[in-house]
């Protein structure tokens, strides 16, 4: 095995994992807030450091992971993730517990992923989207649990027709996917309960 697979993980796995989880938990419980990631990783490109940190925190041998074509095409990425997490790869997006997406702008639509069932809505895919920014993209207005009145988030790049896709995701509640937006050094989350509208309409 090449050393590139072995290096680049958390320097202090226990405490780094805890710190990243708390950032993600805070982001998930207060959608739209941007939570700084204190701990970093150094994964092979095009996997981003923040998305990799989230994956290392949450994925293991129990969670099939799906990689988008941009990540799947790079052998060092899947080898690195396999070594660091032990997670198996999902054959289809509908089998995935987590999906890592390096190029959200060209990603497949949200309804391709596991949505959970009406009995077990928790059996759905959590999407980890690599974005370049959480503040300089198109402005989204967010409402729902975790948000006192309304808040704004401006992530980019985002999937095509995201607001319409998200409306359909809302309509499937309690089924649906949850999204973790991983930007450089920070995360924000969009749980399935968050209602999104665009300001320019």
């Amino acid at each position, binding site marked *: 095995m090449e050393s590139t697979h072995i290096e680049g993980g958390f320097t202090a796995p226990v405490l780094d994992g805890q710190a990243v989880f708390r950032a993600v*938990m805070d982001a998930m419980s207060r959608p739209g807030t941007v939570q700084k990631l204190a701990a970093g990783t150094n994964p092979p490109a095009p996997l981003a450091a923040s998305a990799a940190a989230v994956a290392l925190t949450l994925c293991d041998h129990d969670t099939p992971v799906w990689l988008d074509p941009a990540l799947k095409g790079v052998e060092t990425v899947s080898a690195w993730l396999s070594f660091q997490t032990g997670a198996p790869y999902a054959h289809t997006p509908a089998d995935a517990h987590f999906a890592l997406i390096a190029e959200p702008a060209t990603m497949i639509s949200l309804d391709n992923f596991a949505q959970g069932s*009406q009995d077990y809505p928790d059996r759905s895919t959590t999407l980890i989207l690599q974005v370049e920014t959480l503040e300089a993209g198109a402005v989204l207005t967010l409402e729902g649990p975790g948000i006192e009145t309304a808040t704004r988030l401006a992530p980019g790049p985002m999937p095509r027709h995201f607001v319409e896709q998200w409306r359909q995701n809302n309509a499937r509640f309690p089924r649906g996917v949850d999204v973790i937006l991983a930007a450089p050094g920070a995360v924000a989350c969009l749980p399935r309960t968050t209602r999104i509208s665009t300001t320019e309409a």
Partner: protein
Amino acid sequence: MNIASYNFAYLDEQTKRMIRRAILKAIAIPGYQVPFASREMPMPYGWGTGGVQVTAAIIGPNDVLKVIDQGADDTTNAVSIRAFFQKVANVAVTTKTGDASIIQTRHRIPEKPLGQGQVLVYQVPIPEPLRFLEPRETETRKMHALEEYGLMHVKLYEDIARHGRIATSYAYPVKVEGRYVMDPSPTPKFDNPKMHMSPALQLFGAGREKRIYAVPPFTDVVSLDFEDHPFEIQTFTEPCALCGSTGVYLDEVILDDRGGRMFVCSDTDHCEECRDEH
């Protein structure tokens, strides 16, 4: 030789990841009970194994932990869980509600309003609000899936038929964000209004029953009731005998065998703070 050296916060990392994933799903589906692979803990079921596992999965070295048992910081369950986390995670502990970043609780919500960034971890014995009405998990799961909660309203109605009012005084069912009916754990219904639109994150752990559920901050939590029998909380005629507080939840303390008794704050931190002010 130090033979008893544990991983930080006792649990192994794979267990923490599993619990963390369940917590994220629970937050994303408010009020829905997420199954999780509950572990055996170094304490019996019924002593807060669910709450302890949730706390162990979220706690970090910078957290300040408070543990209460029926509102009190100084009873067996609270003291031993606090000591447990001091030992296995070496975290700071407090009895002051305002200073804590994580508050693990057995059956009370502190009187002092919680703030943003605080996490309230409940120890839950029976997470399924419909369990005593329908013992089969397959059926209660279907009822949640179909949002079929008529049975719960029948139960509350039977209270009224029998007692003239809704006699349920603790573990009073709530509806979260207009969707899932949830058991707030056996807190007195006095505390139900504090759950509604709370700025704090509320996490619920049931160890024996292997369920985790959550109420995110600023989420609708409505106690079930009827138009002609609206939800109401307990009221007390006397103030706390120690600090004089009114509008708080009081415990009855028996003083002798001749009927002597007093009513005091169940929230010991609140009571101490009030006495310090006077």
